[in-house]
Each structure stands twice: as C-alpha cells, then as structure tokens.
C-alpha cells in the first residue's frame, strides 16, 4: 500500500508553525517513515501542485495571488488543516483589518506602492476555502500537529479540543495569576493547548490560542474592569493575536 501523502503550504506568516515540524527532531524522521512529504519548501521539498491526502496550511491570505493559490491547494488536497493563528483567524497581521484605512498603509510606507501586492485584509484560510480541521495556537505545538496527523492516519478526524485554558492551568498545578496577583488573565476565554505557559511563568494569558467554547467575554471584561483596567486596554488585549473578531472562533 502506498504511504499517505502530506504537503505543508505557507502563506503570510512568521514561519513559526512550520517549526512545529522542523523542531520535532527524530519524530520528523519518524513521520517521514509513515507519510510521504511531497511539498514542504522550507524543508527543501518543492512540488506545490502535488495532490496530497493531508495539507497543512500555515499563514493567512493577504494577496490576490494567495487567493488563487489557496484554491489550488484546496482542490489538490483531500484533507486540509489550517495551522496556527494566521491560518485560523488571520493572525496578528489581521490587526490591519481593524484599521480605518488599511489600503493607505502601503502608500504611507513604501515609496513605490505599485510594487507591493497586498490586499486590504489578512484573511483566515476558511474565508476562501473549506477547511476540514483547525489547529489553533500562535504557534501550534509539535504535539498538536503530530496528534492530528496520527489520528488521521488511524482513520478518524482529530479531536477538536475547545476547553478553556483555566482547566489546563489547574491540571498543571499552576497558581492562578488573576486570583493571586490581579493579573488580566485571558485564560477563562482562551482555548487550551499551550500547556498554560504564561501562568506557569507567573504572567497573565494573552490569548494566543484563540477563543474557547462558550466564552463569556463580557463577563471577563467586567471583571477586568473591576481590577482597574481601562476598557480600551482590555479590548486591545483581547484582540492581539487573533484581532479580527469576525474571524474568531465564535460558535
């Protein structure tokens, strides 16, 4: 039987989610034993139009060319997984979606804006094509990626864990920064998955894993206001890594 095939496609991003694969160490070699990696430019494998079973897509759509390319990726892939904040919600660069005049930015910046191909918005992959599964996180971890791939290889869809960071934080035995230090922790509305890193470092979660299921954002806002935070800064905090509310994971 031939091995299942995999491609890693990159759109606008920092490359950090691809590192979830490149930092896997021997597990990467292990993975390559079980799937044939057809396209992964950063790892040296170039075959952009290969038909594959699983496509991992990093990055957001920000140019007209990207719009074409993501459609090609979709039609070439049986199962498409968007990986990381950029791909799932537009990422930090979607901060420009909130600007009044994103179109002007290029003009303000580059002396010859005509050379720059850039749309006004940074869009999640799901804005253009159907996505079969989303891996949230900025960045995603090696474990998330390998578990998703392993589950697919076993014939099932990956498990969509939408529980809140607080649960993970408590399981890890971390001390709540909000309760002990009045820190503006976003744990109660943020998806688990990082391992409660920020609380482990004594700092408040800043929401890099995106929204959790049944989040009471207004409840948390009120609570943070009660701690003395101005509403604008709460708003900014909630919209840092996944800034575009339309592309957040509202279910």
């Amino acid at each position, binding site marked *: 039987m031939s091995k299942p095939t995999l491609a890693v496609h990159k759109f606008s991003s920092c490359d950090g989610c691809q590192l979830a694969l490149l930092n896997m160490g021997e*597990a990467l070699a*292990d*993975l390559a*034993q*079980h*799937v044939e990696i057809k396209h992964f430019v950063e790892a040296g494998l170039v075959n952009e139009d290969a038909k594959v079973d699983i496509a991992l897509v990093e990055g957001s759509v920000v140019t007209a060319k990207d719009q074409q390319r993501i459609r090609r990726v979709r039609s070439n892939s049986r199962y498409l997984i968007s990986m990381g904040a950029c791909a799932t919600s537009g990422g930090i660069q979607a901060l420009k979606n909130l600007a009044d005049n994103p179109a002007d930015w290029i003009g303000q910046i580059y002396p010859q804006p005509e050379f720059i191909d850039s749309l006004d918005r940074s869009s999640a992959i799901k804005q253009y094509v159907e996505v079969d599964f989303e891996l949230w996180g900025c960045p995603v971890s090696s474990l998330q990626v*390998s*578990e998703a*791939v*392993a*589950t697919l*290889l*076993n014939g099932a869809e990956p*498990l969509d864990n*939408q*529980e*809140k960071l*607080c*649960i993970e934080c*408590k*399981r*890890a*035995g*971390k*001390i*709540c920064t*909000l*309760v*002990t*230090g009045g820190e503006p*922790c976003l*744990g*109660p*509305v943020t998806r688990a998955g990082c391992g409660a890193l920020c609380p482990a470092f*004594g700092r408040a979660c800043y929401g890099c894993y995106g929204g959790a*299921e*049944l*989040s*009471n954002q*207004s*409840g*948390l806002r*009120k*609570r943070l206001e*009660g701690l003395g935070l101005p509403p604008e800064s709460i708003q900014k905090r909630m919209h840092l890594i996944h800034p575009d509310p339309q592309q957040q994971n509202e279910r």
Partner: protein
Amino acid sequence: MEDKLPEFLFRNELQRLLDCLITKGFKVIGPKVEDGALVYSPLEQVAELPLGWSDQQAPGRYRLNQTDSVRYFHWANGPQALKPLLNPPRNILWQAKRQADGSLEFIVPDDSISPVAVIGVKSCDLSALALQDQHFLEGEYPDPAYQARRKSLFLVAVNCSTAASTCFCASTGDGPEASTGFDMVMTELEDGFILQAGSEKGREVMAMLPLTAVSESMLQQKQKQKETVFAAQSRQLRTIEKTDLAEKRAHPCWDDIAERCLACGNCTMVCPTCFCHHQTEEAQVNGVDSQHVREWDSCFGGSHGQLAGFQVRDSVKSRYQQWMIHKLDFWQEQYGRSGCTGCGRCMTWCPAEIDFVAEANLIARGEQE
C-alpha cells in the same frame, strides 16, 4: 474518647517527625510557599515549611503575607487539597500496541507507587478525602490506581488555628478540628504541638518521637483555639435538604450568576470532592503506539454534556446549575451527604468572584446575606 493522652512535641523537635517519616520510607509532602500560594509539595526540612505565613482569602482573591508568628500552620488552605495526590490530574490508563499482524495488546503502565506522608492536612480536606474514597473505592469497580495510592498514604492532620473569610466548614460539619481519617493529628501552639494518634501506624510514629506530657493549660489553649476559629467563620452554608435546589431551577438568581460566571471550571478543579474526568486517546504517528489517558474534566466544559447531535448543557446557566445542584443536592442521594466540606476554594479561586455560599443560601433558602 481517646484511650491515650495527647502528648506534646516541642517546636524545635518537629524535624524529628519529618526524619522519622523519611526513615520509615515515606516521601514527605507538606505545605510550602510557591508562586504566591501554599501548595503541598515534597519537603525534607522543617525550614521549608511556611514559617509565619498566613493567607487572606475572599471570592476571587488570594494573598499570602508574612507575619512574625513562629507558627508553621497558621493559614487556612491553598489551591489544592489532597485530590491531586490520589486522583492525579492526568494519568495513563493503558497503552495500546498494534502488532504487525494487526492484533492489539493492552498494557497497564505499572507506575510504582511510593508511600507518601502528608503533613498539615486540614479537617475539611480529610472529609473530602473520605468522599473521594467513597466514590472511587466503594462502588462495584474500585479504581486500582487510586486504591494503591490510598493504601500507601500516611496522613498527619493539623487542626486549624485560623480561618479565612471563605472558610465555612463549621456549618457543613467538617471542621475546624479534625476528628477522624488521619494517622496523626497535631494542634499547633506557640511552643510546639499537641499530638494525637488516629491509627496504629500513627501510634508507631509517635512512639519514635521525644514527647513530653501535655499540661492542662495546653489543653485549654487548644480548646480556645478551636473556639476562636469557630467564631471567626463568618460564612455559613444553610442546611440544604434534598431537592431544595433541584426544584428551584427557575429562580432568577441563576440568570444573574450566568452573566458573571465564566464557565472556566476553576471551581470544579479546586474542589476537593469533584471527581469528573475524561478519557482521551493519544496516538503516535508510528501507527504502533497509542495511549489512553485520563484527565480531570469539568462539568463547565462543552464536552462534558456532549452527545451525538445534542449538547445537554449549552448555556453557562445550565452548567452552573449542574455544578451547584449536583454538589449540594444530588450528592446527598448519591453519597448520603452533600459534596461540600466547607473549604471555600471554589470561591477563592473563582476568577469571577462568585460567592458559592451566598448564592446557594439565596437560591435554596431565599436568604440574603
């Protein structure tokens, strides 16, 4: 009535107790200050104990402060009781191996359990432990891993000498003095500790310590301390009878809570009697190895009530109702008593400052604080 008189251990001899437990092969776990809270953590020296530390607690707020007290145990409690020691937040139930011919093999990891002695266990947490025992051990399918950990546990309780504003064990009947469920109990006085054995093992340990007689005035101090803690408990959970809460699902108070509650599950994670856990599969990419893992879960999470095509509890309100009505009402039918032992953790560690006791009193009894 005890058949043996309490005996006294001078403060400067406390290390002898630790040494004695260590010699007997126990890993000693006790209260330590870590990351701004009192946590039960491995220790070997008395110097690691929280000398002079005391806690201030209120719904949504926990602060430690250092006082010049000479006491080690002058605090109410920290974020976790004994639960993580017996019912760990995560453990592997089995490993599955798929052989080349497709056959499956299931291996139960044999995590060698070393005997653990915990010092500084509070009365409310002993009650909670009894409830966890009932849940995990007394049914038709005792949990073998829990059982193994439980068997090797040695408990040194300490009677409370102070109460946090969130403590209400007096009203649930679970404190402030430990009456059962320990191997030894200590009452900390300025000069040292009145010790009392609660089991044969406890007596053996006590026999190894340089104890002196307990004076009448010491006993009076002990009594006074207990009364002070009793009086200091400003919160009281009113008596809630079976169905008192279950029949009040229409009470407007639930909606008010639901606006504030973040459905974050912290209350259930810190509650020493909450037992919910989920089981998930963690597969390796090699197609050969996979493991089935058990982790704490919460009725505030979406997957708790999820069925194919149907979410049993799809609102914050229904999840809060599940938590409170189960804890205070259905527990009575399930375990013969309420699931609350008055430790107050669900209030302190609630990031939304929800006052569990006040809300329960209000809903069940219409009592405004």
